[in-house]
C-alpha cells in the first residue's frame, strides 16, 4: 500500500509533464514543474486519505478544461469518416477516455472537474459563439457521471437488497462550511517549515475556525503562481490564455471557499460532497501550469540558456525544500509496529481461526475518538492477522452491530460471549479513561488468568 502511495508521486510528475507538453512548454520546465506538483504538501498531509492523495489525473483534467475552449469543439461528429472509430478525432477520443477515467478515479476530483467543465463550457460557448462547445462540455460531464454510476453499482445493489442504511454516511449542509477552503491555509506555510521566518509567520496565525485541511499549503512557487493569476485582473489582461487561468482559479475559489457556492450546492442539491477544501490540488495545478507558461516565455527571450537552466535548478531546489518539511505526517515507530504485529500473531497462535470480541465497543464507521483510541483503531486486528475473525466492523444501523454492541456492555456476560462464538476478548486500553479499563478486574476475577499483553502494554487479550 505504501508502494502505491510512493508510485503516486511518479504518476503525478508524468501527468504534469504531459500537460505542459501539450502546450509546447519545454521538457525541462515540465519536468521541474511536475516534480514541484508531485511534492505539494497536500500529497503528504493526505497520506491519511490514501485514495485522495492520488491526484495524478488532475493535470489531465486541466488539459481537458483548456481543450474545451479550442476553436474546434470536442466530439464533433464526422459523418464522412471511412471507419467507425474515425467519427471523432483523436483528441475527442482521448478526452472521452480521460473523462471516464476521472469518473472512475475519485469522486471528489470528478465532481470538481464537472464544476470547472460547466463554467469552461459556458465561457467557451460565449467566446467561440458556438453551442457545440456547450454540448461537448456536457458530453464530458455525461461520461464522468457514467463512470461514477458504474462505480456505485455495489452501493446501489446493497441499497436495493438490504435497504438504505440511514445511520451511515449521513451528511449535513453545515459540513460544507466546516470543511471549506480557507485561502490563508493554502498560502501560509506549515508550522514546522524549514525556513524560520515562514515558520514564525504560520505560528502567528491562529484560525478562529478549525477546518479540515488546516494545513493545505500549496508551496511557495504555486502560491506565487496563484497570486500571479489573480493579479492579472489588475492589468486588465485581455489574453485568452490569462482569462482561462483566471476563470478556472476564481471558479475554484468561489466554489470551495468558506461560505462559498459549495454551501448552496449542499443545501439545494446534496450535502454528500462535503469537503470543498479538497479542491486545492486543482488550484495548485493551475498555478504551477501558469508558472510553467511564464517560464517558457522567459526561456524564449533569454539569450544565455545556461543562466536559465541554473535558475530552473535553483527554483526546483528552493521549491522542494519549501514544500517538504523535516517532518510531515509520518510518525513511524518500529517499536509500535512490532508490538502490534507480535501481539496479534500471539493471539493467532492461541486461537487459530477463532473469533475475537473487541472492547471497548466502537461503532463503525466514522466516529470520534474514544479517549485516546482513534476511529478504526480496531482494524489493527484484521490487518495484522490472517485467519482470525474480529467483532469490529459490523455496520452501525444493522442488526449485527446492535447485537455486538449489546453483548459488549459492562458488566460482561462471559457466558453469552462464549455462546456467540467468541474465543477471546481483545482490549484496547487507550479506549478507556487513564488507559485503565475497569472491566479487566472482572475478567481477571472470573477467568483467573493473566492477560496476554502487547509489548507496549496498550493491548491485552483474555482467552475464553
Amino acid at each position: 500500500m505504501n508502494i502505491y502511495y510512493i508510485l503516486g508521486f511518479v504518476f503525478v510528475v508524468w501527468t504534469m509533464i504531459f500537460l505542459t507538453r501539450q502546450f509546447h512548454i519545454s521538457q525541462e520546465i515540465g519536468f521541474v514543474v511536475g516534480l514541484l506538483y508531485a511534492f505539494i504538501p497536500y500529497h503528504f498531509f493526505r497520506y491519511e486519505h490514501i485514495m485522495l492523495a492520488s491526484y495524478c489525473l488532475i493535470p489531465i483534467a486541466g488539459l481537458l478544461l483548456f481543450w474545451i475552449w479550442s476553436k474546434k469543439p470536442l466530439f464533433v461528429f464526422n459523418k464522412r469518416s471511412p471507419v467507425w472509430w474515425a467519427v471523432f478525432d483523436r483528441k475527442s477520443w482521448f478526452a472521452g477516455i480521460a473523462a471516464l477515467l476521472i469518473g472512475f478515479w475519485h469522486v471528489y476530483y470528478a465532481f470538481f472537474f464537472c464544476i470547472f467543465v460547466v463554467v469552461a463550457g459556458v465561457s467557451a460557448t460565449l467566446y467561440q459563439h458556438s453551442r457545440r462547445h456547450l454540448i461537448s462540455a456536457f458530453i464530458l460531464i455525461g461520461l464522468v457521471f457514467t463512470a461514477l454510476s458504474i462505480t456505485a453499482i455495489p452501493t446501489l445493489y446493497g441499497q436495493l437488497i438490504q435497504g438504505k442504511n440511514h445511520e451511515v454516511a449521513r451528511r449535513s449542509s453545515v459540513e460544507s462550511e466546516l470543511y471549506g477552503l480557507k485561502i490563508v491555509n493554502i498560502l501560509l506555510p506549515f508550522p514546522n517549515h524549514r525556513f524560520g521566518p515562514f515558520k514564525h509567520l504560520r505560528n502567528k496565525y491562529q484560525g478562529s475556525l478549525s477546518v479540515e485541511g488546516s494545513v493545505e499549503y500549496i508551496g511557495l512557487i504555486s502560491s506565487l503562481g496563484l497570486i500571479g493569476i489573480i493579479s492579472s485582473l489588475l492589468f486588465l489582461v485581455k489574453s485568452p490564455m490569462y482569462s482561462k487561468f483566471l476563470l478556472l482559479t476564481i471558479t475554484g475559489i468561489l466554489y470551495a471557499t468558506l461560505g462559498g457556492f459549495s454551501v448552496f450546492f449542499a443545501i439545494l442539491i446534496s450535502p454528500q460532497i462535503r469537503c470543498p477544501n479538497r479542491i486545492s490540488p486543482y488550484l495548485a495545478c493551475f498555478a504551477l501550469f501558469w508558472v510553467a507558461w511564464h517560464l517558457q516565455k522567459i526561456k524564449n527571450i533569454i539569450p544565455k540558456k545556461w543562466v536559465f537552466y541554473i535558475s530552473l535548478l535553483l527554483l526546483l531546489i528552493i521549491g522542494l525544500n519549501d514544500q517538504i518539511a523535516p517532518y510531515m505526517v509520518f510518525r513511524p515507530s518500529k517499536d509500535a509496529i512490532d508490538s502490534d504485529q507480535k501481539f496479534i500473531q500471539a493471539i493467532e497462535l492461541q486461537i487459530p481461526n477463532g473469533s475475537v470480541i473487541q472492547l471497548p465497543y466502537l461503532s463503525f464507521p466514522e466516529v470520534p475518538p474514544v479517549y485516546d483510541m482513534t476511529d478504526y483503531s480496531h482494524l489493527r486486528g484484521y490487518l495484522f492477522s490472517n485467519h482470525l475473525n474480529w467483532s469490529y466492523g459490523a455496520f452501525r444501523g444493522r442488526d449485527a452491530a446492535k447485537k455486538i454492541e449489546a453483548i459488549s456492555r459492562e458488566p460482561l456476560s462471559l457466558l453469552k460471549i462464549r455462546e456467540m462464538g467468541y474465543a477471546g476478548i481483545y482490549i484496547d486500553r487507550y479506549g478507556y479513561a487513564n488507559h485503565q479499563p475497569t472491566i479487566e478486574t472482572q475478567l481477571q476475577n472470573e477467568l483467573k488468568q493473566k492477560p496476554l499483553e502487547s509489548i507496549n502494554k496498550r493491548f491485552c487479550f483474555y482467552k475464553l
Partner: protein
Amino acid sequence: MFISEKSMKKKFQHYWDYIIAAIITPLIWGWYYGDHFKLSLSYPLTNQSDLWMGFASIKALINGEWSPFSGIVLNHIGSPFGAVNISMDYPILEQLQFVFIWIIGFFF
C-alpha cells in the same frame, strides 16, 4: 530488427523527462523520508484514523475479497455475523484505483 543507436538517442531525447522522473522522484522521496518507509511497506506509518480503513480495504483487495461489481467484502470483520460488504452500506467509488493497487499487489 536492430534499433539503431541514433534512433535510441532520438527516443531518449523525446522521453527523457518521463524516464528521469521515474528515477528521480523515488530518490527525492528516499532523500527525505526513506528511513521512515524502510520500516514497513505494508502497514500505516501514522496513527491517523482513516488510514487504518484504507489499509484494511487494500488488504481485502489483495486477498481477493474485492471485485468491481460486488465491492469490498471483508470476510474477517463483524464476526460472528459473516462477511461485511463495506461498499453496500458506504459508497466507495475509487474502483479504478483499486484495480491499480490490485495489479501492484501481484508484484509485491
